[in-house]
């Protein structure tokens, strides 16, 4: 019974982590422009992240190391510094985009321009990290994230042709806007396979003191939680395809077009639900990314860390998330377009994948860390696939950024 509760809490949490500004914006754009044709990218991204999250949890539960600890210890500082710097940069952009997402939701709700909301949002997030515990952040905020299920409800109520949805889950070549099509596919993959997700998950497993008895729980949470999150993304895509596409909005280049998505289904409440979903999903992600920055630095250099400690007991750790949050709010406060930043940072995330995923191949096959719980053939094949995918994405995302970016 306790395990069941733990699994359901974990599933809810991972949904909160999965759905953020990136997956919402990329799914909405893809749906509006290409109908159901890009569903396969969401499905593929979700399968990849299930494998990576399961491995990150297993690694932490068996070896009592976070992924960052493992990379530094196994490969040495001179190799670790590259994933460290690149992940810090990518996370920073993602955090900025998440703050922008909450700020846009606040603008939609109040009419006051998003720029003014960036610093208050950063402050509120900081306050929760400063005063809150890991449990509060992990469970409390992600519980609220269940409001995003409204997209799945909406998708079902729109009665899509399920046959076409199924066709969309198989990759196919675009008939128009080829560069844009592939750029969208890259951004969707980047939004689903985020390094911060699996790195945060392994830190969480250490914070929650997981051991080998959690291996089953871990598998269930990774599988169910991420597929749940993927389902909501598909929901966003279907709604965007049927509502935005049908109303002739093919080019989602402004956040103000997005709330229209739910209005035909839920009326005025559709507007409220959209704003609440956007705000909560992005706020939850902002908390996780800011914490992950602090985890990464503290684990990389061996400082004391833990969200349950008081800031005065881990001053270095607390200072990292404080600085990150307020610095990440600055570009939004200066008026950088959150939607453009989101799409850009998702493509960059995809390109940075090899640096953080290659170590999985070594860590999860090393007897000294995972002993008998090392990767099987399927898991290793999945890692190699993600690495290959990451390399391709890294090579194509830059030219696509120029020709296919919004």
């Amino acid at each position, binding site marked *: 019974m306790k395990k069941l509760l733990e699994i359901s809490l974990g599933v809810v949490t991972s949904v909160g982590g999965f759905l953020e500004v990136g997956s919402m914006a990329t799914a909405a754009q893809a749906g509006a422009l290409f109908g159901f044709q890009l569903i396969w990218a969401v499905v593929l991204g979700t399968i990849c992240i299930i494998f990576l999250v399961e491995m990150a949890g297993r690694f932490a539960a068996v070896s*009592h190391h976070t992924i960052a600890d493992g990379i*530094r210890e196994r490969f040495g*500082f001179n190799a670790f510094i590259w994933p460290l710097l690149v992940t810090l940069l990518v996370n920073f952009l993602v955090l900025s985009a998440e703050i922008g997402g909450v700020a846009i939701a606040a603008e939609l709700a109040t009419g006051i321009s998003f720029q003014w909301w960036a610093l208050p949002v950063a402050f509120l997030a900081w306050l929760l990290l400063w005063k809150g515990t890991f449990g509060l952040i992990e469970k409390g905020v992600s519980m609220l994230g269940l409001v995003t299920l409204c997209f799945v409800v909406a998708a079902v109520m729109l009665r899509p042709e399920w046959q076409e949805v199924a066709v969309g889950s198989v990759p196919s070549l675009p008939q128009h806007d080829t560069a844009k099509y592939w750029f969208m596919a890259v951004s969707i993959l980047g939004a689903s396979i985020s390094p911060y997700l699996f790195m945060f998950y392994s830190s969480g497993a250490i914070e929650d003191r997981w051991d080998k008895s959690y291996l089953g729980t871990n598998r269930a949470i990774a599988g169910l939680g991420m597929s749940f999150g993927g389902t909501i993304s598909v929901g966003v895509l279907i709604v965007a395809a049927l509502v935005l596409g049908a109303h002739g909005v093919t080019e989602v280049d402004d956040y103000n077009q997005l709330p229209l998505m739910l209005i035909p289904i839920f009326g005025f409440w559709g507007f409220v639900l959209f704003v609440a979903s956007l705000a909560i999903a992005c706020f939850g992600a902002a908390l996780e990314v800011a914490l992950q920055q602090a985890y990464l630095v503290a684990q990389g250099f*061996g400082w*004391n860390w833990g969200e349950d400690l008081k800031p*005065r007991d881990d*001053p270095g750790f607390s*200072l990292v998330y404080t600085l990150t949050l307020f610095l990440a709010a600055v570009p939004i406060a200066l008026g950088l377009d959150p939607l453009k930043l989101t799409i850009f940072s998702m493509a960059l995330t995809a390109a940075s994948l090899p640096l953080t995923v290659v170590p999985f191949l070594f860590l999860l096959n090393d007897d000294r860390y995972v002993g008998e719980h090392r990767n099987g053939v399927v898991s290793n094949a999945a890692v190699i696939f993600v690495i290959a995918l990451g390399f391709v994405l890294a090579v194509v995302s830059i030219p696509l950024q120029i020709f296919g970016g919004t």
Partner: protein
Amino acid sequence: MQLLRDILDKQVVDREQVKIGKVDSIVAELKPGKPPRVSAVELGSIALARRLGSAPASWTAKLAARLTGRQQARPHRIAWNKVRDIGVDIEFDIDVRRTRIFAWQDWLRDHVVGRIPGA
């Protein structure tokens, strides 16, 4: 046990299990006619910067010297004979509060973090 594989870059904790850093470098003694012997481990940014090359090493050492107001800045050293346990972490029989390792974190606590309400 292999030094570089099993000791370098491992998490260091003190006797109270406080995380105090990583093994940033290893100090070995060479005496004529005898095999090399590990005498200490080093922690801190100076030791770390040395691994990246001579230029980062001299910048970091200069910066550290300026920040601490000393003539010369050296990495923190913990004698190898203080090692108590090597497992997930490597535990040394020291009390971090009696070393200078956390001097910068203490400074942060007293001057920045501690002054923010709720810390």
